[in-house]
Every structure is written in C-alpha cells, then in structure tokens.
C-alpha cells in the first residue's frame, strides 16, 4: 500500500486558519465528554425512576413504564437523533419552532444530550427493574411488615441492594454512553467523531486520524470503567451479594 505516513500531522496547522489538528481533536474530546456526562445524569435519574415504577403494585404505572422502555429501546439511536432534531420542532407552534431551530443556545448539544439521555434511561430502567426483581420477595414484605411505607421500603431496603447488584451492567452502560455519543455528529455536535471526519478531509491523513480517535475513545471508556469499578468496590457490603476479595 502506498500510504504517505505523517504522524506529525497532529501538530501541523489546519489548511485555512491557525489552529492545529490536535486542537480540533481536543475540542472534540471536550464535547464528547460533555455530551456523555450530561446524558448520563439524565439517564440515571430517569432510569432509576422509571425502573422503580415498573416494580410497584400500580398497574397503570407499570404499563406506562413498560411503554416508555419499549419506545426508546426499539428505535435506533441514530433515528432518534434525527427525530428529536428534525421532526419534533416541526410540531411546535411556528414562533417556538423558529426559536428552537435558530435561536436556542447550543441546540445541537441540548438535542443530542436529551436524546442520548432518554435512550440510555430506557436501558437503565430495564436493569433497575431486573435488579429489584432479583431480590427475594421477602425483602419487600419484611420492609412493609415493619411499618415502612412503600416509598420508604424502596428507599431503605430495595434500591440500595438493587443498585449494588446492577453495578456491572451499569458500568457497561456508562461506557456505552461515551461510545454512543459519537452518533451526535450526525446532527452537528462538534464532538470527536465529527472532528475526526473534518480532520481526515482537511489533512488526508485518515489512518493517523482514526487511530488517534480510537485511542481517545478507548481511554474515555476505560476511565469510565475504572470509575465504576471504584464505586463498586467502595459500595460493597461485606458478606452480601459479591464475595469480598
């Protein structure tokens, strides 16, 4: 293969301007981290709320929760991005629609964060439900028999244990958020994948570009993994669930 290698390309200036390609990738990384962390917060809050609701005795709440999960789980993430960005604003009143489309600050970032947050929340809701349902029935009964209300039973008995059980799948989900944030390039968030495409087009050093971006994504996901591993270790209750090392 006749490829012209140039590993110094990251320190070279872009074609029209005084930035370097490295500064493009770093700003892309910043947006990737921002989108991922912001949507992770949304996903955790909504995911825990909806997952919990799906295990309550209220049938209509359970159905609503199930519908929510199935809605967001069954549509591809990329399609959801387009739906939020291109389709939803068209159903708003004319003035609000124009405001969303032209004036709303950081509209791509907001749209991508909400979209990725909701998508991930459906997955977390499913894990939370599974976590709660994996607990022996007696736990809930004991809580209620002691005179705790239903919310108190969840708060003090069920959720603390369910959370510890689902830390491993939550770890994967946290890593997924970083990787899935790459889809946000499609609606114009200037994140890492976007900058990689831009850099490849501008510099024609595609292999170096994508190798660098691969490493950056790997590092992000790996840091997420280690953070969750730390939380898993610190929150462990000796003698309960996993054996202490």
């Amino acid at each position, binding site marked *: *293969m*006749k*490829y*012209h290698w*140039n590993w110094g390309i990251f320190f070279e200036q*872009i*074609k*029209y*301007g005084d930035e370097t390609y490295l500064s493009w990738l770093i700003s892309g990384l910043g947006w990737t981290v921002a989108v991922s962390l912001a949507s992770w917060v949304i996903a955790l809050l909504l995911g825990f709320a909806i997952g919990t609701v799906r295990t309550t005795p209220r049938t209509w709440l359970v159905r609503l929760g199930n519908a929510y999960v199935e809605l967001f789980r069954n549509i591809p993430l990329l399609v959801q991005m387009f739906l939020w960005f*291109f389709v939803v604003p*068209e159903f708003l009143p004319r003035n609000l629609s*124009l405001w969303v*489309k*032209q004036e709303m600050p950081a509209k*791509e970032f907001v749209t991508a964060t909400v979209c990725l947050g909701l998508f991930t929340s459906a997955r977390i809701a499913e894990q939370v439900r599974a976590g709660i349902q994996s607990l022996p029935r007696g736990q809930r009964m004991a809580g209620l028999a002691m005179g705790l209300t239903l919310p108190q039973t969840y708060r003090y008995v069920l959720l603390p244990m369910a959370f510890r059980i689902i830390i491993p799948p939550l770890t994967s989900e946290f890593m997924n958020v970083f990787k899935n944030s790459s889809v946000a*390039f*499609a*609606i*114009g968030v*200037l994140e890492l994948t*976007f900058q990689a*495409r*831009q850099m*490849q*087009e*501008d*510099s*024609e050093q*595609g*292999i170096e570009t994508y190798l660098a971006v691969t490493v950056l994504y790997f590092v992000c996901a790996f840091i997420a993994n280690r953070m969750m591993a730390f939380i898993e270790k610190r929150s462990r209750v000796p003698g309960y669930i996993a054996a202490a090392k």
Partner: protein
Amino acid sequence: MIYRFRLSLFLLAGLLATTPAFAQELSGTLKKVKESGTIVMGIRESSYPLSYLDDKQQPIGYHIEICNKIVEAVKRELEVNLKIQHQPVTSQNRIPLVTNGTVDIECGSTTNNEARQKQVAFAVTTFVTNVRMVVKKASGITSLSQLDGKPVATTSGTTSVQLMRAHEKGKNVNFKEVYGKDHADSFLLLETDRAVAFVMDDNLLAGLVTSSKNPQEYAIVGEVLNIEPIAIMMRKDDPAFKKIADDTIRGLIKSGEIEKLYNKWFLSPIPPKNVNMNFAMSETLKGLIKNPSDAPAEFYNKK
C-alpha cells in the same frame, strides 16, 4: 480442453512475438490490470452529474464517460480485453481505497489539492467547481457580509467553514455554523429554516436545488470562496498509467468531444428525472480546456 490449451499457447506465442519490449516495462496499475484482466473503477452513487447511479443502478455521468474512454485506451495499450468492475466509493473511503489497491481509477468528484497529492495522483482537470452559497431568494442575502449572527449550514467533514472565515469578506462576520451529516441533510437545514445559507461546491448546490421541491425558491449567490479543480484520481508514482489517462483527456479536448460531453451532462436534461442542471462552464474550466493542467486547488486560490 485441447482447444483451450492450443488457444492459450497461441496467445502466449503471440504475446512473446509482438510485445517483448514493453512486457518488461509494465509496472504499477497497468501490470496489475493486465494480470487480473479486470480494472476496478471507483464510482459515486449520487454525485450528479459527474458520477451517479441511474434508475437501473448503473453508473453514469460525465466522469464515467471520460473514464470509459480511458479504459478503452488502456485496453488498446495492453492489447487485452478488460472487465470493468464498478466499486462504489464515498468521500471518506475513496483515497484509502485507491492507495490500498482496491480501486484502480476513481471517477467521482474529487478535488485535486496539495494534501491529497501526497497520497494520490490526479489526471488533468476535467471539471471545476466554485465554493459558494445557496440561499432562499426571499431572504435577500447576496453576500457573506450579510450573514453576521445568522446560522449557516455546511456538511460535516468538509472545510467550507474554514473557507468562509478565511475569506476577506468573512473575517469580521460572526457565523453560527450548523452541520448536516451529508449534503442532503445540509440542504434540509436550509429548507426547514435552521440555516439561512448553505455553503458548498456550486455544482452540488445546483443539483440539490434542481431536485428540491421548489427550485425557484432558491438562488446560488455570493463570493467565490474557493476554486476547486475536480479530477479523475489514481495511484501516485505511476507515470505510465497517468500518461494514458492524461493523453486520453487531451485527445477529448483536442477533438472537441469534451465540450460535447459537457453539454450532454450539464446543459441538457439528464436521467433519471430528466432535469437540466443548466450549469454553464466556468471561466476557469474554459481556460483549462485551452491549457490542460493537473495543478492542485492551491494554484487557483493564491492569496
């Protein structure tokens, strides 16, 4: 069997008798093509009217016709019959596919620039595009300087935004750039009022306008941000193959056939929708037809 064996002996004898001198000279693409009996042509699926698929999914277009002529010349040179294999490429993978040997000749809409010349070679320029903007006529926008604080669309993975910033009229203008993932998406941004202008190669803009719902609503306006020579692409350091390509194009220019091809694809109704792009030949291309050149974009945009 015997017949085939004798045939191959006959061919072998013919080969040895007629072409011993140049058999040794064959190298690069010509050697690869002769050995495999196949030439792989990189094509685009929707680069109207340079290279695209018709309603039967067959590649057609201005550059496809020119490439077919080049392949004919290669056949004459090698004195073999070649099978043409079409390989669809995208703007992301076209250069890797040429450098790694998957594609022998790329007949799409690739800008010849200095960065790319480090990886690949280009035939003499056969088309020139100007980077400009398309707006809705109702907006009254005719210049970059009117875009201050307004959302301007472009396609991710292209460098139009940097071009706008670098242009003297764009220096003091604060653009709010918005990005589509491909040209159709970017045009949608303009169509749905998320952007007031879309900056891109003018031939692509003309194509998008022509195929839009209300073509008369749009106008291509404003300063030329960059002049980009578009050319057929091949592997670097392969002078024998490049010479055949260049000579073929020079021949088309000399015989006046290139103008006929231009008229056929840019100034007449073309399939599949039978619309006319009405895209007159730019002054730069007229000049290049008088004096063919494979100079990169930087040559035309000296500041």
